[in-house]
Structures are given as C-alpha cells and as structure tokens.
C-alpha cells in the first residue's frame, strides 16, 4: 500500500538541488516501469506525474464519471482529414492523467511484435507518402526483455499462467472466426490474473477494464511497479506535478525539470539524467516547449523529427446484433483475439497486418461512439438491442507520415499558460485499404454466426499514441538511439511509445515495458561506466 493511500503527501524524499537523482516524467507503462527498475538498482528517482494519486478503491464503474476522473482532458486541438478532427476535435486521444498513466485503463492485451515488423522499410522499400524507417533493433534484441516483461506482467498463457476462460462476447467472435475459416482464435495473452499472483487477486470478471481495475487483478504501474519502487526507499513520487520545461546548461546537457506542483507553484528539480515518458503527444510537446537558443527547434530536435511520424494504429470496430442475448459487457473486456490477419501479405492491397480483438462498451459510450452524432428512431432501436450485441476492435499497422505530427498551437494556451498540442493526421491510403479489409473481415466473422445486422464503427480517440520521438540508427533520421537516448543530448532519454520507429500491429504496452527494461539495463551500465 502506498504512503499516499490515506491522502497524506509525504515530504519530498530528495532535495530540489540534489543533482544526483534521475527524474522520470510520467508514471505509465514506460516511466513507471523504468522508475521501479532504476530504484531496484540503487538509483534515486524523482517521478513527476501530472495526474492525481488515485487508488483502485476510488475508481468508478461508470463510463463518463470514470472518464472525468482518469482521462487526460486538458485542451488539445486537431487538424487533418482524419474523422477525429470532425467528430472529437478536442479529444484526439484517450489516455490517462493519473498515477499509473494509461496502464490504469489498459485492458491488458500482450502481443509481441514480429520480426518483420521492425523492418517494414527494407521489406517493402519506400512507400509513397510514408516516412518509413527500419528500427535500429530487431526482435532478437527485445526477446529477452519480452520474456522478462511477460513474467512481470503475469501474462496469461506464459510462465505457466492459465488462459482466460471464454466469456459471452468471445463465444460469439470466436465461433464466428472459426466458421469463417480463421485458425488463430483464442482468449489471448492478457496482463490480468487468472489465478492469484504477485500479491494480486484473480479476476472476478467484473468488466470495466477502461475504468480502472478496482480489484487489482490487472497489472498496472499503479498497483505493481510503483508500490515495489516505494519499498526501496528510493522513489520520490510527485503527483499533480505538471512538467513545463526541461532545462539545460551551456554545454547542452540537461540539468533539471521545471514543473508546476499541486498548489500551482513553480518548482525546479535538478537531475543527473531526465527520462521523458509522457505519452507521445505530451512527450513531443514537452520537448518542443523546451527549446532555447541552443536548441531553437525544441530540445533534442536537430533532426526536425520531434513530433513527426505520429502513429495511432489503424483502429475501428465492428459491432453486430443477434436474435439471442449476448451480454458482451460481462467479463474481461478484451479477452479474445484473432491473429490470422496479422501476417504480412501485400496481396491483400496493403502492407502490414492487423488483429481482431474482443471489445465491449457500455450503453453510455456505445451511444456516443457507435455512430457519432447519430439520432432518431433507427438509432434508438439499435440501442434497444444492446444486450443482444457483440463487439470487436480492429488494431493494425499505421504507417508513419512526416506531416502526421504534434505541433505547438501558440494560439491556444492551457491552464499553465503553455501552448497546447495540435495533433494533425491525414489517413494514408495503406491504412484506408487495411481498414476496409478489416471491416469486411469483422463482418464476415459475425455473419458466420448469423448476425442480424453489423455496424462499422469509426476510430475512437486514440489510446495507442506512438512515434513522435522515434528511434533511428542515424541522428538525422530520428530523435533517439536504440536505447531511447537522445541523439543530441547525452543525458536525456525518451522512455515511452514515442520511440517506436514504426507501429507494428500489436497493442504497444508490452513492447513499451520491454523497451523500458532494456533502457534500464543500459542506463545502469552507463552510470557504472561514469558516462552519465
């Protein structure tokens, strides 16, 4: 149990001028895991988190109330031809602003990247409109860290952990997929407990995965990594602290972070190393906001790549109604997957692959997202079929494009007086072709179990935000090296999904954790070598 559990805030463990600490900004999958890993290795860590320190007991089984409790709702703007800009212009992304970051509302799908997904560029050559680049690492570099990550997250079907049982929604998707000829059909590899493990209980199939897990059956940095780090006495967690700027000295090394604390006061924390893990939109924004005469285009941005190559995965959903009840909301929300379409087969009219994964929404969210802005009697009749409805999510590769990017919107300021991020996205023809294919595949799955009617649902605000500080072998092609270390700034690291050179089809959290573990090894080695 964390010391903040009763609402009391312990005094800061480390002094503001303690330049021996490593500052990690953001406590989600990347930052929370890295912070714990560094603490375990004897490093003093100040973990700065914009959100509050909620505990699972505080979470609410109510979609809108929970969104208002956990989501990052600070103002943002959008542009480009993507539907989000029209349908949800100020909510481009659905991520969390809370201790634990977006792991708090993560459903837990753990899919490893495939070997070829690290090198789409060399597999396919240049593709018009795409800023494709191979990762500087491959699957073999990450495999040992995937192994560690799966053990740490308690992933089902690995390390002897039992598979999730089939719930109602999966019975529909799974049978449909088999009848449609798919083979890779299962309840999946999931980061929730099917049996008690690591001091956390087995799931009671209570659903509400996106609302925070009240019973701690799901791994999150809130319930797993941060409590472990606190036990070391080396973690100084500072919630409700919004990083404004990363500061540097005349030599171009970073020296600390300027942030605004819970009382609205500016604070400066010195640092030996700064690791940025704010999720792709805020990571890019913080780097861009940290520009100076030495770094006129933003910190670590001599390549011009900070904020560019923003990827959000294909996404889309298919829902279907049936003449018999389904009750898709019962049980673990995403415990089901069809993997066949994740292969690389350009014969389908697009490169890269996609997965079909289980998904359900309650009536509150379904009514908003099923057909944005729809109204009238036909819509109301569909909603009355709610308990006869099944759902799936489509997630696939989204090619990087130079102009799909996060920039600073200097015309709009947030509550701290800072320019808000603008997120610009134009769909790439490859993604459009993949989405059409995926919609048709999803419909064929439900048709095979006699759906009455199917619905193609456009992408929701994005939970997978990637690529805005990408890894590259050469400094001119990207922002960080294979360990997430900034090409331009030797003691600055990026530790979240921003570093992904390409998106692959898989849900990114497992890979973000694996990259954080690999980065922790590297930082420890560099510290020992006196290079940091």
């Amino acid at each position, binding site marked *: 149990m964390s010391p903040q559990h009763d609402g009391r805030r312990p005094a800061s463990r480390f002094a503001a001028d303690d330049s021996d600490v490593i500052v990690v900004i953001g406590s989600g999958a990347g930052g929370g895991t890295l912070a714990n890993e560094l603490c375990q290795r004897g490093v003093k860590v100040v973990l700065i988190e914009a959100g509050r320190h909620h505990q699972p007991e505080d979470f609410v089984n109510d979609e809108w109330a929970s969104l208002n409790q956990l989501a990052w709702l600070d103002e943002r703007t959008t542009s480009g031809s993507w539907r989000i800009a029209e349908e949800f212009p100020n909510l481009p992304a659905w991520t969390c602003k809370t201790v634990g970051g977006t792991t708090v509302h993560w459903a837990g799908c753990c899919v490893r990247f495939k070997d070829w997904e690290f090198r789409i560029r060399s597999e396919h050559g240049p593709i018009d409109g795409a800023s494709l680049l191979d990762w500087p690492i491959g699957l073999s570099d990450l495999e040992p860290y995937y192994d560690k990550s799966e053990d740490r997250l308690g992933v089902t079907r690995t390390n002897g952990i039992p598979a999730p049982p089939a719930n109602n929604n999966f019975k529909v998707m799974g049978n449909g997929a088999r009848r449609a000829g798919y083979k890779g059909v299962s309840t999946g590899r999931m980061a929730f407990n099917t049996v008690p493990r690591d001091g956390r209980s087995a799931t009671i199939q209570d659903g509400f995965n996106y609302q925070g897990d009240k019973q701690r059956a799901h791994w999150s940095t809130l319930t797993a990594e941060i409590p472990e780090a606190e036990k070391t006495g080396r973690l100084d967690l500072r919630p409700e602290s919004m990083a404004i700027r990363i500061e540097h000295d005349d030599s171009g090394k970073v020296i600390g972070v300027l942030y605004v604390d819970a009382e609205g006061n500016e604070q400066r924390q010195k640092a030996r190393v700064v690791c940025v893990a704010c999720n792709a939109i805020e990571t890019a924004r913080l780097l861009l906001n940290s520009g100076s005469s030495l770094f006129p285009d933003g910190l670590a941005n001599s390549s011009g790549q900070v904020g560019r190559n923003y990827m959000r995965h294909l996404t889309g959903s298919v829902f279907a109604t049936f003449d018999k009840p389904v009750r898709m909301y019962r049980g673990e929300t995403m415990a089901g997957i069809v993997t066949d379409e994740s292969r690389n087969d350009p014969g389908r009219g697009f490169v890269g692959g996609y997965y079909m994964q289980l998904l359900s929404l309650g009536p509150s969210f379904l009514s908003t997202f099923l057909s944005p802005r729809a109204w009238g009697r036909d819509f109301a009749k569909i909603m009355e*079929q709610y308990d006869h409805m099944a759902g799936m999510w489509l997630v696939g590769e989204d090619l990087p494009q130079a102009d799909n990017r996060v920039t600073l919107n200097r015309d709009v300021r947030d509550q701290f007086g800072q320019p808000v991020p603008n997120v610009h996205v134009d769909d790439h023809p490859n993604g459009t072709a993949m989405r059409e294919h995926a919609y048709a595949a999803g419909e064929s799955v439900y048709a095979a179990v006699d759906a009455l009617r199917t619905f193609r649902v456009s992408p929701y605000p994005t939970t997978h935000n990637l690529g805005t500080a990408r890894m590259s072998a050469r400094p001119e092609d990207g922002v960080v090296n294979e360990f997430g270390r900034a090409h331009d700034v030797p003691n600055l690291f990026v530790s979240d999904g921003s570093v992904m050179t390409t998106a692959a089809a898989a849900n990114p959290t497992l890979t973000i954790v694996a990259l954080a573990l690999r980065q922790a090894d590297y930082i420890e080695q560099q510290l020992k070598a006196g290079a940091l």
Partner: protein
Amino acid sequence: MSTPETAILGSRALATITAAARTMYPHDALSDDVYARVGEKLAETARDDSGAAQMIEDGVSALNGDRAFAELSADEQLETLKGIEGSDFFELVRSTAVVEVYSDQRTWQLVGYEGPSFDKGGYINRGFNDLDWLPDPEAAS
C-alpha cells in the same frame, strides 16, 4: 447575465427540451423523467456560460413557432428538428441528450445493461459465460 436562474430555463423551455430529447432518442417505454435530465443539465450549462444561455434561449424560441414544440405531433417534432440539425443549439441539445439518456439507470434496465458490477462480485458467478447458443470456441477446436 443577471437573470435569476429560474428564468434562464423556464418551464416552457424545459418542456421544449424534454420533447426535443425524446424526439432525438425515442424510447417509448421511458418516462419523461429520463428526458427531463437533459433540460436540467442544460440549465447548469446556462448558469455557467452566458453565451450558452443565450444560444439555448434563442434555440428554444426558434423551436416554438406558431405552436408550442411540445404540443406538436411526433412527426412534426421530427421535421422541426431536422430543420435545425447541424446548428450549434441542436448539437448542444443532442450531445447532452445522448449522454444523459444513455447514462440513466432506467435506460440501462430497458436495454439490458446491469451497470456497476464490482460491488456485486463481478460476473464470475453471475453469468460472464452463460451464453448457451454457441459452444466454447477453444474447446470446439
């Protein structure tokens, strides 16, 4: 805006909004109490935002032409709303209505949704896998 809040949305405005919300998301089995939530929510909005208050006042006036909107037939109400679809006022009412109507427990009961589950022990013993018209797909393989 110094108007007393009771006058910001008077009974005629509330009746108009209730009728408009029902026309947008018509569930015959739901009582007007569910749709009345929309007017209550918009009254809060109007209290906090004088620009929105004016928009609501103007929008309600426009819906109430020669005859009160709430007194029109369902078909007439539908046609009247189609006439203002896309306006800021329409979108404010619609976006408020979709949240209020589909977050009401009476609506949940109507559509067969059981709401919060944690306090009831989840669904592990309450039917998370009780669908009986298809087999377990993995067992079937």
